[in-house]
């Protein structure tokens, strides 16, 4: 049986992990409850998106018809020239930029610069809203071209099914993130977290970066393949 009041010997490397896991009270030292909970939630959510993508890859191989060519489907005509994946490139750039502004917000939060932290959170929410707006535009364009969940003009019907389901589910995550950012930013400016180290900004940021990371995988597996 391990003694709880272990002698405070200095440990380094892997031994620190063993020390933390064999200690009392908290396993992750100095990690607030909310942050631990968000990490665990994101782990669970990772499984949801992995399974969405795995399912998409499976039906892509089982369907009998040819899969539409993504770079032709997702192209915008600029000055009479079709540019493949133009909109998607802009959307991806927008979302990754929002991750940058989020990181700045976290930094300012820990410096207790409330005003800047809140501003950058609103800016992040703005980029998120722009992303959802562009996604709505993309959906509208594809729907007007005849893409439906059950059929499309170019080939396998699962193309539309997977597209609407996966980007829709991701879009819901982004929309929820925008709402979450706005609510937390408002609460910060009202002084609700003044007694804390503003970990809440980092917790919100964790979710936001996760949504961003998921998009990278959707981009790679759906648009580039």
């Amino acid at each position, binding site marked *: 049986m*391990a003694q*709880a009041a272990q002698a405070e010997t200095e440990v380094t490397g892997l031994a620190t992990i063993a020390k933390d896991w064999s200690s009392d009270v908290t396993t992750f030292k100095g990690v607030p409850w909310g942050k631990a909970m968000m990490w665990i939630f994101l782990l669970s959510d990772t499984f949801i998106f992995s399974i969405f993508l795995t399912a998409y890859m*499976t039906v892509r191989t089982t369907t009998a018809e040819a899969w539409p060519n993504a770079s032709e489907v997702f192209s915008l005509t600029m000055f009479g020239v079709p540019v493949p994946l133009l909109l998607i490139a802009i959307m991806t750039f927008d979302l990754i930029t929002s991750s940058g502004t989020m990181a700045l917000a976290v930094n300012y939060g820990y410096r207790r610069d409330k005003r800047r932290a809140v501003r950058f959170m609103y800016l992040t929410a703005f980029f998120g809203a722009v992303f959802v707006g562009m996604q709505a535009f993309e959906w509208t364009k594809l729907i007007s071209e005849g893409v439906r969940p059950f059929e499309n003009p170019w080939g396998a019907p699962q193309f539309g*099914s997977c597209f609407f389901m996966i980007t829709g589910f991701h879009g819901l995550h982004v929309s929820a993130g925008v709402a979450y950012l706005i609510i937390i930013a408002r609460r910060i400016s009202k002084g609700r977290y003044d007694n804390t180290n503003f970990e809440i900004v980092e917790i919100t940021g964790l979710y936001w970066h996760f949504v961003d990371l998921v998009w990278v995988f959707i981009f790679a597996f759906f648009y580039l393949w």
Partner: protein
Amino acid sequence: MAQAEIPYQEAIPLHDPHTWITKYWFSQDHKVIAVQYGITAIAVGLVALVLSWIMRTQIGFPGLFDWIDPELYYQSVTMHGMIMVIYLLTAFLLGSFGNYLVPLMLGARDMVFPFVNMISYHVYLASVIILMLGYVPGMEGPTGAGWTLYPPQAILTGTPGADWGILTMLASLAVFIVAFTMGGLNYITTILQARTRGMTMMRMPLSIWGIGMATVLGLLAFPALFVSAIMMTLDNVLGTSFFMPAINSLEIGEDYAGGSPLLFQHLFWFFGHPEVYIVALPAFGVVSDLISVHARKNIFGYRLMVWAIVAIGGLSFIVWAHHMYVAGMHPYFGFFFATTTLIIAVPTAIKVYNWTLTLWRANIRFTVPMLFAIAFVITFVVGGLTGLFLGNVIVDVPLSDTYFVVAHFHMVMGVAPILVIFGGIYHWYPKITGRMLNDTIGLWHFWITFIGTYAIYFPMHFLAIPRRYYQYDIGESTILTPSMEILNVSITLTAYVVGIAQFLFIYNLIVSYRKGREAGDNPWEANSLEWCTPQTPPVHGNWGERLPTVHRWAYDYSVPGQERDFIPQDVPREAQA
């Protein structure tokens, strides 16, 4: 950062209930939420019990009642399975035991996010209500697709409930998963970050290890069910073809093409197999504690018990396709999944040996909870041994979809965890209410349930007939031998008796609440922290001003040279004797 001479939870103000509504309905107290989960799960379990009577009546006495038509039979099969696995077992073991025991056994004030915890119960309640919507007149009945909900049949006309039943089922599952996630995040975070002073992981009672590991499995496995529920809903409502191949139904071509029914089976069982352990691991944990307390002996091989729980949890994610041998797969896949399946038997056997060795030469008190715990071990061994047959591809293929399978999973993950739930209720009822349950009724309940379930499921191993058949007669002839017919009748009659015995139990719960013997703080002379609360039943906040300090593991029973045969966890090492 300020690292806690006083853990920060002592500084956090509690949400104090003022009105009846905030105290008993929208309560944020983990103990009230646990009881809410428990009552709801038992209520919905009784529905499933009645459904099993309907099934058994049809099988034992085919054609006796006109109103048991094939639709009702298949709906009962489906709803019985789903309710028992998800809405009773999962909800009770994690929602009720998890909520009650995690903060108390760890010496915490409450779950880390009581508000989320409260929402979790109400979302669970919503999922139960949505599930039952299938029975509302005008909804044309719940789904009859079997609890595995395999497409394409689950959503094609001809299957009962193809209009609304399947939708309410899928919606209910998705809502349940949301509820579980909110609860589960709380359990894990509480276990990792909100233990009391001195409570290291390796001093946690095994109940907590079982509940914690099962919650991890749930958080990683339920996503597969969530995603497949979404995809099947889309197939049904929007006409997508995720799971639907090109198909003719009643000679009419359906508007589906190119989907993969096998994909659904993979997703379903990627959830479904860990689900078995989501139910089993908390039961393992709780039964370890029951056996140790009532055998007055430390649990044999505590560390190995912990690592066995962890190993079973890990392995449970790489065995799922053993439910799908008959679906057709590459022989090497079958080889892989059979091997991993049989490897799980190793940590499981370690647990069974350790329970047995804990009982060996122990000072056993044959209390009602102890009887249930011993009955669990016996039932689990019988059910587990048949699992060895079903895990082998070549033996499984002829046994698939026969009553051998029904017998196997009912013993190993139906009856066995239910016995632990009963044992746990008899064990912790005194802490929850302050009164003991009546022993005489308890003994009747135990013996009828234990012997009865044995009489129901053991003969099923030898009943070589296919399962999920509405009837076994074809015109004048039948595929049943006379001995099989006798067995079917006897199983049905036993099922009535065992079912009625459960009402004895509920009567006991209700009557003892007012008239039971006063329990005192620690009626079983147990060590773990929930028996060390200043009040019984524990008040909101559990511990008063200061959280307890833990000085030892939870299994110091019959320590030589001590006056009493138990030393609670909060007794300092110097002060013993």
